[in-house]
């Protein structure tokens, strides 16, 4: 640094430099303790219910900062207990097992099928599974009936299967979707081939301890994630009662290796892929959750959102403090009817100046059902102080509504 020994330039302090080192050694900043995780492989079976009260299970899930969990249990009671206790946290799956230990007999057991059909009449689920099925057994009558039920009830098949059985399940009905438990314990190359071949196939990474071992990803797994950024998700697999207590540990461990991935990919694997696969199905299947969804706008409004349109209800939620020339994210939430064909976009202008933003921010759909549209607008940047105006364009078939809201920066 001799050149500037007499100059008046201030060198950064070591503290600032260390801060910067932290920034470059951690690939993404979001995979901290706050990164939500969706756990797509939880069982709360009869012996687990005996050992751990449902309140404690929910505590563990909240400690893990789970966004939600796909829970299936043998028998179904544990799933129902958790769903009742924390409906916002649990997506129920229907396991066709009445007790543990039916995994090798269920596919030839008429009573297991009857049990499944009975529960489908009274309860609502997002999936059937996790069930165990290999090779030719997928084409036996009971598994075939399970596939029919899945199509009929709009349910994902959660299959602990080899690739052959997965392909047979998919071939039986062109509408069904399969969540491949443990990604079949197959190698990344085979998983990638399967995902490339079947667009109705997703995979969970439950009990795949080699994924992110030591906090880092092997090139093969990293490549798989980059090749299929929207198809893989996390899962603990609480296959013993004790393992329920591994849920927070699993989430923490996953966050470590997710931190080595680009931010959006990490979020996809952490929760968005599971959310996008399961939540729309669950909301459609469950009227109670639909009502909950319709109330999202009310919640957003209570949470400092701005109402800019009444029909349909449209809420814009920006950070409480907006800094000039600093990018930020705005959320638009729309609640109404027949929203599936609708789009919503946000812009910002300075009417007095006759210009808007210098950027066309990214619009990412977080949630989209008949009754609810939630869009994240990322990269909004207001480059001057003064009076700005949010412009929200809501397009439905044959109609365009523009809503405005003035605010001062």
């Amino acid at each position, binding site marked *: *640094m001799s*050149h*500037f*020994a*007499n*100059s*008046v*330039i*201030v*060198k*950064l302090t*070591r503290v*600032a*430099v*260390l*801060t*910067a*080192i932290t*920034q*470059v050694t951690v*690939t*993404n*900043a979001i995979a901290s303790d706050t990164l939500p995780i969706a756990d797509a492989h939880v069982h709360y079976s009869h012996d687990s219910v005996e050992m751990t009260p449902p309140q404690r299970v929910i505590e563990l899930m909240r400690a893990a900062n789970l966004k939600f969990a796909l829970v299936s249990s043998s028998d179904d009671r544990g799933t129902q207990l958790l769903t009742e206790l924390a409906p916002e946290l649990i997506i129920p799956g229907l396991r066709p097992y009445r007790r543990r230990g039916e995994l090798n007999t269920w596919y030839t057991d008429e009573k297991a099928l009857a049990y499944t059909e009975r529960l489908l009449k009274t309860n609502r689920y997002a999936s059937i599974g996790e069930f165990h099925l290999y090779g030719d057994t997928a084409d036996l009558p009971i598994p075939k009936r399970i596939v029919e039920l899945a199509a009929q009830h709009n349910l994902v098949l959660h299959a602990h299967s080899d690739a052959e059985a997965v392909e047979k399940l998919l071939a039986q009905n062109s509408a069904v979707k399969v969540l491949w438990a443990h990604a079949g314990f197959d190698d990344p190359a085979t998983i990638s081939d399967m995902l490339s071949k079947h667009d109705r196939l997703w995979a969970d990474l439950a009990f795949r301890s080699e994924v992110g071992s030591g906090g880092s990803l092997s090139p093969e797994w990293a490549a798989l994630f980059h090749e299929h950024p929207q198809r893989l998700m996390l899962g603990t697999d609480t296959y013993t009662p004790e393992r329920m207590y591994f849920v927070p540990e699993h989430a923490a461990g996953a966050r470590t290796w997710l931190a080595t991935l*680009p*931010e*959006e990919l990490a979020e996809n694997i952490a929760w968005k892929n599971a959310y996008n696969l399961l939540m729309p199905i669950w909301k459609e299947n469950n009227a109670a959750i639909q009502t909950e969804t319709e109330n999202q706008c009310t919640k957003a409004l209570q949470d400092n959102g701005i109402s800019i349109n009444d029909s349909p209800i449209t809420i814009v939620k920006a950070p409480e403090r907006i800094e*000039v*020339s600093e*990018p930020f994210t705005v959320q638009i939430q729309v609640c109404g009817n027949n929203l599936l064909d609708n789009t919503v976009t946000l812009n910002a202008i300075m009417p*007095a*100046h*006759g*210009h808007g*933003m*210098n*950027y*066309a*921010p*990214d619009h990412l759909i977080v949630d989209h059902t008949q009754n609810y549209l939630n869009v994240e607008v*990322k*990269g909004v*940047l207001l*480059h*001057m*102080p*003064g009076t700005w105006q949010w412009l929200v364009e809501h397009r439905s078939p044959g109609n365009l509504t523009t809503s405005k809201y003035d605010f001062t920066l």
Partner: protein
Amino acid sequence: MFINHKLNRTLLLMFAVLFTPDRPLKAESTEELTPREIALITAFGPWPIPVPADAGNEFSGLAWAEDLGEQLFHDKSLSGDSTLSCASCHNPGLGFSDGRTVAIGKRAHVRNTQSIINVGYNRWFGWDGGADSLWAASLRPILSEVEMQGSIPVIAARFRHSELIEVILRNTGAAEVGTDEQLLVTIGKLLGAYQRTLVSPQTDFDRFRDAVLSNNSIEQQRYPVAARRGLKLFFSNANCHVCHFGPGFTNGEFHDIGRPFFTTIGQVDSGRFDGIKRVISDPYNLTSDFNGTKRPADIRKTTTVKITQSNFGQWKTPTLRNLTKTAPYMHDGSLSTLREVVDSYAEIDPTRLHSQGESILKPQNWSDQDRLDLVRFLETLSH
């Protein structure tokens, strides 16, 4: 260095307090700040603020990289014929600029050399924002036919077996530096790491601003009355503060202030309009494989930036810090003094501003004293 700097500053302050002719003996009511003005200047500090990491630069913030970057900054081997270094135009003795109207590299440029003090705070780099990172902006002059006329194979050959490479490998643990192009990118990133450390110190304005916020009336009175009057003009409805906003006195974006941008008869330098096209097509932009950190938030600016007609003739809002050391002014260096800059804004031609342009800019009926006061205020943004 820091201690000496502080001592010098103290001495200068003492000198200023004792001998500055416009120093008030007591605050006068006409110079009292209004609540609106106090609220506004709050947003213009504190200073300095942390410098963000250079986007996509995995070496940003690493001390060894900053040291190597500083060496490279003065290394003439980075130009094709080994006659020019970065420091040839960004001369530390001239505020990291060159004092010329327009730059002269291997050929004559059409733009003024921007100072690189505080360059690390930028979102876009260069007058037109044609680079989206400091390291990419550092590669541009090296490879420019107008500036340093370097070429990838020639520069890589000069450095491939140098001690510099040994230091890089030792610190990164890498086995090799890669292709010629990767080696050049590494050099750019080292240059970026160094330039990020160039931060200007506190100024009289910063001390005044801090004193206002802490209600320290004694420190406030050290601030010259003329500068205080100029400050009130700066934050008035003349709207200087709207674009020259925040602790860095820039919003980091691009505006048309009615300055001509012909470079010669029949040629224009379209500024931001071409800058956006250049950054999108830049092989070293943040969407490229050379991005060493791949943070989506960094990349998003490059993938979402809009190109519009109004970008034609826009230039980046420069920082006003260190202004007294970086004359001449404007993208083409066409204004020699701060007084000329103030006159230019006061006498702006509204017809040059398209109706979609910044309607906040309008001629100002400033007296000669007003203009002197505004210059005095601007001077307090330099140390």
